[in-house]
């Protein structure tokens, strides 16, 4: 048997499913999305003792096979549709040994689908420590399935599990499907018409109502017939089905399990909860944790980020020397490499953030944060789980949006994704520093406050207020067919597992590099082209002009090279675009040079500083801000001779950078996470639209206001 077997890993949330998945596959994993939906799909492979390759898919943690939303339905389609090409040969069911009753509800549903199953009883060590006694042989007999007790964290029983997988699972003869005599008969009939393997399978088709384009008319007719014949009410049928399963499972378990007195264990858990969800200390602790994350994101991540930038600069310098000049050289060293570096520079922050979130999730703390923050966030259409992404957004929206995966509530998740980029990210910081330095004097007020620092803080507050305001608007605008709940399990506290955290970090970074990276590189190349090429006539004139001048010494050569660069950028396609959009941005107080910077900073906001430097005849980033500021303040409108960088223009520009969506990395991630071009466009246009409107108002009204007061 060289073909290999397909395994589906299924279980309730918080049963250690991903820990087992990691233990089985290590880093031989792929992550992607299920077709058409945003639910992450992880699959991996491993070799069995007989040399067979096993491909295992980690299905989303779920309490039952009943659909909650379309997104949640699709991963389970592979189980319900018998003709599905990805249908697993074996279900590896993982259950928490201390919480069997609830775990077996989902198992009983799988049993009714007549799929070969192996039951892995996880955290068997903890169950034993609590004093729970499980008679494995008794359960194997009653359930009709092979059972392997394991502890995925401690790597106990994994060998036995692998051995059992090589032997294979069993199709249980138990049946848990609930219904009266006539209904069962009707279900059997429906089963035949649909061509599915079991009655329960037919029933799940009724609940899920997979009626898309692929549904055969005959099947649809059979489903409709059953629904009208049996007055089929999906909701109450699901409820009764679940209650019936609990009854049958209790009967099975009562003979095989001796429950223990777990009050000592519970008291410890209660004590931790008493502190972490305390009405005062709970918040203090949460803000302390946030502070720690912030520090790591800004200071710790700063070193690898600088190292990445430096090594890319070195590499592009080397390349410029190594390969002969010309378009290809320029494309690589000024187009592709900066694009690559623009992606790589995010890696440290993404790694740190996903590490912290993985730890918070693995320990059970994240659920408590959601618990204490839910009430505040609810008012804005968000929920408790939106807090972490929003806060992370002040570092970078890219990992922040990736971290919204924890939000099961679809509407809240979408709103969180939409508004997170309004939080002032670290890429805005260089722009803010440059512009605040232009408009606000470096003075101390009220004894201790630095005026520029206050202005900078004001911009961060502005971002937060804007995010909350936008969320409130989206709350009204986004219609949701499914009622939104906040029903959330608060899992047992555990120490974080190093392996789980490390593998999560690696996978997040990989997913970002390969999925968002592709789009970012493509746009970088386009922007490079726009900034380095221009209409042939004008461009050649610049080249000829500078070719004619013979520099007397190296210093002059350097000056000439800089001013050639400046003139080339002014005459490039980007320059033309800047001039083309000037009529549109003129009411905001921006001239065409700012227009060029707006266009190039679509790659990333901080590019603004580099572009402005080039436009004002200075070397790129890293040069002296004060010299640049002086050059900017000197510039005047060629026609009206008014100062370009008036106070109103600077404030208007600051507002524009605070609100506008000028980050293709964020757009790429939004597209990836929402799997919707529509919502990606909504994000682009609502943010940029708001930027335009508010900058317009500020520029037009500020002079009026100052004259009045």
């Amino acid at each position, binding site marked *: 048997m060289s073909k290999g077997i397909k395994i589906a890993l299924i279980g309730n949330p918080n049963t250690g499913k991903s820990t087992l998945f990691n233990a089985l596959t290590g880093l031989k994993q792929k992550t992607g999305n299920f077709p058409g939906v945003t639910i992450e799909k992880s699959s991996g492979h491993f070799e069995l003792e007989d040399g067979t390759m096993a491909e295992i898919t980690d299905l989303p943690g779920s309490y*039952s096979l009943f659909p909650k939303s379309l997104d949640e339905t699709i991963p389970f389609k592979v189980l319900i549709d018998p003709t599905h090409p990805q249908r697993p040969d074996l279900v590896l069911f993982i259950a928490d040994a201390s919480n069997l*009753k*609830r775990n077996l509800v989902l198992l009983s549903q799988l049993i009714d689908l007549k799929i070969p199953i192996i039951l892995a009883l996880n955290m068997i060590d903890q169950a034993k420590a609590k004093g729970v006694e499980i008679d494995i042989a008794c359960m194997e007999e009653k359930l009709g399935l092979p059972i392997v007790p394991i502890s995925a964290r401690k790597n106990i029983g994994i060998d036995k599990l692998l051995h059992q997988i090589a032997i294979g699972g069993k199709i249980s003869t138990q049946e848990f499907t609930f219904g009266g005599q006539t209904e069962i008969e009707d279900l059997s009939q429906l089963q035949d018409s649909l061509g599915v393997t079991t009655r329960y399978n037919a029933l799940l088709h009724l609940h899920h109502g997979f009626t898309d384009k692929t549904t055969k008319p005959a099947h649809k007719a059979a489903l409709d017939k059953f629904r009208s014949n049996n007055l089929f009410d999906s909701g109450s049928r699901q*409820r009764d089905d679940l209650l019936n399963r609990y009854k049958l499972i209790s009967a099975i378990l009562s003979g095989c399990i001796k429950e223990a007195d777990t009050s000592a264990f519970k008291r410890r858990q209660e004590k931790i*909860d008493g502190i972490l969800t305390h*009405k005062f200390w709970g918040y203090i602790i949460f803000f302390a944790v946030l502070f720690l994350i912030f520090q790591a994101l800004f200071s710790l991540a700063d070193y690898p980020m600088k190292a990445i930038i430096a090594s890319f600069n070195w590499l592009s310098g080397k390349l410029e020397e190594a390969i002969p000049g010309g378009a290809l050289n320029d494309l690589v060293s000024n187009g592709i490499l900066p694009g690559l570096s623009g992606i790589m520079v995010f890696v440290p922050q993404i790694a740190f953030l996903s590490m912290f979130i993985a730890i918070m999730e693995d320990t059970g703390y994240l659920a408590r944060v959601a618990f204490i923050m839910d*009430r505040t966030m609810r008012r804005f259409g968000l929920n*408790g789980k939106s807090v972490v992404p929003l806060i992370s957004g002040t570092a970078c929206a890219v990992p922040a949006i990736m971290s919204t995966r924890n939000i099961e509530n679809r509407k809240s998740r979408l709103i969180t994704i939409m508004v997170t980029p309004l939080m002032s990210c670290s890429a805005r910081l260089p722009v803010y520093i440059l512009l605040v330095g232009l408009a606000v004097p470096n003075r101390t007020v009220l004894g201790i406050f630095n005026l520029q620092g206050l202005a900078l803080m004001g911009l961060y507050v502005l971002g937060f207020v804007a995010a909350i305001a936008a969320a409130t608007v989206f709350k009204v605008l986004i219609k949701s067919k499914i009622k939104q709940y906040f*029903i959330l399990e608060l899992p047992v506290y555990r120490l974080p597992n190093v392996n789980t955290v490390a593998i999560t970090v690696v996978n997040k970074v990989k997913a970002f590099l390969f999925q968002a990276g592709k789009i970012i590189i493509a746009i970088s190349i386009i922007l490079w082209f726009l900034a380095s090429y221009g209409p042939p006539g004008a461009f050649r004139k610049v080249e000829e002009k500078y070719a004619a001048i013979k520099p007397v010494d190296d210093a002059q050569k350097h000056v000439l090279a800089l001013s050639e660069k400046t003139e080339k950028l002014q005459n490039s396609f980007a320059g033309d675009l800047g001039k083309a959009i000037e009529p549109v941005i003129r009411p905001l107080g921006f001239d065409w040079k700012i227009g060029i910077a707006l266009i190039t900073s679509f790659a990333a906001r901080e590019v603004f500083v580099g572009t402005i430097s080039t436009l004002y005849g200075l070397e790129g980033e890293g040069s002296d801000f004060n010299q640049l500021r002086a050059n900017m303040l000197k510039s005047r409108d060629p026609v009206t001779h008014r100062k370009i960088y008036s106070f109103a223009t600077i404030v208007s520009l600051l507002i524009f950078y605070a609100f506008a969506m000028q980050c293709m990395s964020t757009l790429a991630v939004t597209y990836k996470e929402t799997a919707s071009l529509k919502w990606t466009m909504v994000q682009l246009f609502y943010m940029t639209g708001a930027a335009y409107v508010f900058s317009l108002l500020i520029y037009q009204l500020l002079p009026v206001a100052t004259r009045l007061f």
Partner: protein
Amino acid sequence: MVLNKNDEFLTLDKLKNGGQAVILEILDTNISIKLIEMGCLPGETVLVRMTAIGKDPIAIEVSGNLIALRRSEARSIRVKPVDA
């Protein structure tokens, strides 16, 4: 169903922190499916373990699981209080 003032039934949101009760029924079908799946079903004893600021959301312990839910959702769970 209209609740009588003298009825000994309550909805779960009326229970104080630390209060214990037996679940009688869950009125909203959709909420009931979600809760039953998580182990919160009629006949089980429920304990209000903790509440967030403003007593919303609340966290209940039922069949050995700790579940957080909003007050509005707790309102659809009818319970019979038991003396601890």
